[in-house]
């Protein structure tokens, strides 16, 4: 990001940026930067909190009034989600008996059942928010479970996007899957969740999360270089290398 600031400012445009990784900003020295303490992925901090986001934005734009640069200042507030949070649990019971998840067929069946259970909440979320982030794969929600589930079998699915490698389609499909789960569960009462809580739930408590770990393990040594890359690096966050016990 700091590099972009340099390039644009050299072309005559005043820039200001939000910084998530302070050590990078210290090295790159862009003209103006506001470091924030929020998670990567949340540069404006708190979802659905216009007042908080505006304070962050005003602070970043306010750096344009500094007389000399480079400027690097720290935003003084943490986002509300970063405070102490109580127990969080998805009210819709998705728990599947562990003995049912060991076999490939049962895991895929549990995954499909889970998506069915969440579908009503997802549809409600879309209606209430007026938006969804699901759809970059171009695969419909009714087809998504079969497409992703097929990667756990010995027969890879047909590629729905001929312009991309099959691995890219898998990457986009699993992003759609994760978005579906988040948008559905956060529509439920009291289920806003912090990034860690939502991540712990998805990767640790759902059949979908377990399926992604299984697909990663199955294709981590694929002969297909791109599929191997997707499996190893783009399905599961590096901070969650193993499924929770």
């Amino acid at each position, binding site marked *: *990001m*700091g*590099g*972009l*600031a*340099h*390039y*644009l*400012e*050299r*072309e005559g*445009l*005043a*820039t*200001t940026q*939000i910084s*998530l*990784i*302070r050590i*990078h900003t210290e*090295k*790159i*020295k*862009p*003209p103006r930067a506001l470091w924030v*303490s*929020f998670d*990567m*992925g*949340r*540069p404006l901090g*708190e*979802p*659905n909190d*216009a007042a908080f986001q505006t304070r962050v934005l005003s602070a*970043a*734009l306010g750096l*344009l009034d500094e007389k000399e640069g*480079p400027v690097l200042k720290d935003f003084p507030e943490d986002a509300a989600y970063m405070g102490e949070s109580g127990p969080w649990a998805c009210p819709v019971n998705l728990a599947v008996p562990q003995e049912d998840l060991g076999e490939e067929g049962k895991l895929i069946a549990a995954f499909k059942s889970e998506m069915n259970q969440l579908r009503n909440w997802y549809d409600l979320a879309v209606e209430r928010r*007026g*938006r969804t*982030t699901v*759809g*970059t794969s171009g695969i419909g929600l009714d087809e998504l479970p079969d497409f992703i589930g097929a990667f756990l079998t010995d027969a890879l699915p047909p590629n729905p996007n001929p312009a*991309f490698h099959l691995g*890219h389609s898998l990457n986009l499909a699993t*992003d759609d899957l994760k*978005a579906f789960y*988040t948008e559905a569960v*956060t529509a439920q009462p009291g289920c*806003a969740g912090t*990034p860690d809580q939502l991540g712990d739930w998805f990767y640790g408590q759902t059949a979908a999360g377990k399926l992604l770990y299984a697909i990663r393990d199955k294709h981590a040594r694929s002969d297909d270089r*791109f599929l191997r*890359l997707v499996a190893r*690096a*783009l*399905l599961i*966050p*590096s*901070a969650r290398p193993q499924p929770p016990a």
Partner: protein
Amino acid sequence: MARMEHMHEGTRTHLENLPCPAFETTPSVQAPPAGQRRVAIVSTAGLHQRSDRPFGVGSDDYRVIPGDVTANDLVMSHVSTNFDRTGFQQDLNVLFPLDRLRDMARRGEIGGVASYHYSFMGATEPEKMETAARALAKLMKDDGVNVVLLVPV
């Protein structure tokens, strides 16, 4: 957490060792007074309109996001899985504060919001975005933009 000490060790080590571009000097352009600022957002979150081509591994190009984009038409195809997306999934303004800028313009805190905004996919070496960035600068100036808000992911 964007505080390094709270990050997973592997993530922290990766970020600490990530090469950063070096610049001998830092340029400085004086911004106009607040009420005359026409602001464009440049994101590195891999955002684009729903009908646009998704980003892929190594993408160093950008997508154009019209200023009148609807919330449902803005999607993300960044390849990395190592940042939180749940905030964006609940509220696009958590990483693309278009509504907040519109609010500020209505209140007269800035002069206006650009007709077009732009997104790169940040999992790319910064140097590879330089050519596109310089071309973007001309487009933004033609749009009357005089301030760029850079928002990372």
